[in-house]
């Protein structure tokens, strides 16, 4: 049996529970919270050390933000350039408006290849479009090759982070999954032994399966090339042995020039895993005779991205290079891990990206899943002002919700509307303070503190006291004090 009995996480924004409810089982799960906090503390410490040694870190961020903004501001141009150059180099480019189209394109390509199995390089975009279940339902088996993804696939679990998707699982749990699924009863939880088990499992797949699927860290418009960065070398294997490679990439992943990688790669590895350079950087351009896959397809996925692009204040969301520094520094994510976000994209970037990809029809609780502490913006290597976008989205959610009849009596809505009337005039504010003081006196204990409040106030007092209101406000003290002052 698994060491922790967990509900199966639902990473589909159309089905997931609202964030405040989804966090409840997580917050009560000591092992999961320890695993998450430990993992991100380790990455954060490594990142901080490596960022500190770069004297030009802020300049790099500025450059990266400019490169990404420029690419997005001219996205149509660079995508067409990518298509032209990739095609010229022997690749085949496909355009997918949404998840349904992308899945079908990929399935058709696999069928044309006569594939019954496919190996995969880690790609969150394929999780976004729920590719694996779709392909498997059509009788084609998928094999993840990234170590964390293998753990999740064999353990029937969902990713909880975009860079280290299995960070919520510890060594003992990995051992249990491998022992059960690989039939290795005597496996220990020594990392070396676990990695060896995965290696043995993988080698046969690399040698036997001629078709591979990847994501892309970057698409390079200038050359028509694709870049994938990784730590384990499994990606490199997938790019060397198979006959056919199908790359799925969001349309926002494009960089104008090859040289832009110089800036991006310096930032990405440091931000993502706290390494100076990621161990494997694979770059390929179309097809090279006698070297690597001889058939190469790129599926360019929109799936809500153009609607984000069309909105000036929201566009910055698409600058993201998926380093996950925001979730590693986020005090909310540190408590909850990724599953509670109900999306393959968790943490601060997920809180803004997921509802926008769903065109604000789902995941409306996510923009509120932040204390607006600003730590995400501070670490973001491409300077996405996540708190600013969160506020935009909060305002959109409120504008949607306030039209709903049931909201009239919602204590939060009612309270904020009344508060607005109160703050409009000083005399109303002062009267409200008086009424508040009288009203709260009923709840104030002998010690002068409030220990219990009804309704929304009870959400405060479930874990915190509140000091009773003082008898005199500041403004009345000021008004009563002798006028000569000094």
């Amino acid at each position, binding site marked *: 049996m698994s060491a922790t009995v967990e509900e199966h996480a639902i990473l589909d924004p159309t089905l997931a529970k609202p*964030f*405040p409810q989804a*966090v409840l089982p997580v*917050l009560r799960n000591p092992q999961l919270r320890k695993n998450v906090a430990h993992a991100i503390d380790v990455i954060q410490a490594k990142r901080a050390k490596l960022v500190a040694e770069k004297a030009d870190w802020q300049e790099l961020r500025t450059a990266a933000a400019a490169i990404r903004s420029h690419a997005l501001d001219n996205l149509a141009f660079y995508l067409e350039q990518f298509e032209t150059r990739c095609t010229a180099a022997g690749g085949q480019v496909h355009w997918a408006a949404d998840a349904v189209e992308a899945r079908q394109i990929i399935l058709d390509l696999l069928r044309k290849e006569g594939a019954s199995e496919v190996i995969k390089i880690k790609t969150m975009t394929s999780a976004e479009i729920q590719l694996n279940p779709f392909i498997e339902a059509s009788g084609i088996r998928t094999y993840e090759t990234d170590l964390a993804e293998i753990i999740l696939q064999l353990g029937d679990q969902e990713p909880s982070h975009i860079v280290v998707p299995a960070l919520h699982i510890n060594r003992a749990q990995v051992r249990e999954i491998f022992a059960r699924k690989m039939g290795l009863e005597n496996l220990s939880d020594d990392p070396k032994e676990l990695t060896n088990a995965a290696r043995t499992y993988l080698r046969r797949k690399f040698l036997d399966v001629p078709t591979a699927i990847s994501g892309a860290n970057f698409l390079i418009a200038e050359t028509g090339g694709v870049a994938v960065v990784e730590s384990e070398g499994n990606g490199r294997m997938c790019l060397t042995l198979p006959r056919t490679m199908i790359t799925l990439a969001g349309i926002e992943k494009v960089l104008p020039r090859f040289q832009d990688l110089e800036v991006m790669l310096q930032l990405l590895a440091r931000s993502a895993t706290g390494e100076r350079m990621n161990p494997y950087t694979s770059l390929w351009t179309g097809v090279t005779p006698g070297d690597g896959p001889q058939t190469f397809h790129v599926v360019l996925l929109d799936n809500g991205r153009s609607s984000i692009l069309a909105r000036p204040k929201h566009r910055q969301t698409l600058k993201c290079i998926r380093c996950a520094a925001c979730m590693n520094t986020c*005090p*909310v994510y*540190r*408590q*909850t891990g990724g599953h509670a976000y109900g999306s393959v994209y968790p943490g601060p970037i997920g809180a803004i990206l997921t509802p926008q990809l769903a065109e604000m029809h789902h995941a409306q609780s996510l923009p*509120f*899943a*932040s*204390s*607006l*502490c*600003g*730590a995400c*913006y501070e670490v973001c290597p491409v300077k996405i002002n996540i708190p600013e976008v969160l*506020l935009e989205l*909060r*305002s959109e*959610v*409120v*504008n949607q919700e306030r039209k709903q009849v049931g909201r009239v009596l919602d204590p*939060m809505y009612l309270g*904020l*509307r009344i*508060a*607005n009337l*109160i*703050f*409009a*005039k*000083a005399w109303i*504010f002062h009267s409200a*303070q008086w009424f*508040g003081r009288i009203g709260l006196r009923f709840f104030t204990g002998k*010690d*002068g*503190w409030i220990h219990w409040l009804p309704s*929304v*106030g009870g*959400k*405060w007092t*479930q*874990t*915190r*006291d*509140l*000091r009773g*209101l*003082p008898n005199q*406000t*500041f*403004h009345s*003290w*000021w*008004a009563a004090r002798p006028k000569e*002052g*000094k």
Partner: protein
Amino acid sequence: MRASLFITCYNDTLYPETGRAVVKLLERLGVELDFHPKQTCCGQMHANTGFRGEAFSQAKRFVRLYQDTETVVVPSSSCVAMIRDQYPGLIHELGNTELQEQFAELLPRVFELSEFLVDRLGVEDVGAYFPHRVTYHASCHGVRALHLGERPFRLLSKVRGLRYLPLQNIDRCCGFGGTFSVKNAEVSSAMLAVKLQDVVATGAEYCTALDNSCLMHLGGAMHRQFAGMKTIHMVQILASTETSPVEVTA
């Protein structure tokens, strides 16, 4: 030097002793302090909860009230962050050029308390005496929006009798986040639990900050848990002297 105190709605209602300490401190430093009786709220709660329409009216109100003021001093870092980071967007959206100009002129004259002391008055030693063990929480808006940097530490280091005890993860959020603390009460509480561990581990008697909202959150948990610590706004420490010690509340 003349300055006008924007006390903020929650300090006026919940923490009048913070306001009294501002008056005591600034008058001791020779500032001619003024208080606009019509002030209410900066609109942060509305803006941060998505009620932008309501936040517009507070932003307009603030600009109209203070447009002729020489200097505005605010003992709350998150309210100053609201004015500095969110007002420009709100006021731009309103499309009223006169208001935009008034705001652009006013904004450089709005100071958070430690900014006012260190940058505007140029003082670090305010003549305070506070013989206690104190730790300092660098609140999110103070550290990441206002970039207060060394200012709070310089002010604290000059307080006689004060023993400063450093806080681990000093700039990690306490989990308050305004309405976040009730909309996501459980996560907020989990964040608070982690923060409070660090705060209590300092061994300090008092946890101070430049924002009473974080302190209300931390103090609420300290009181509930009989943690044996109290919170105190930094201005109350700075106002405290040997002959006139700080008001001790609750």
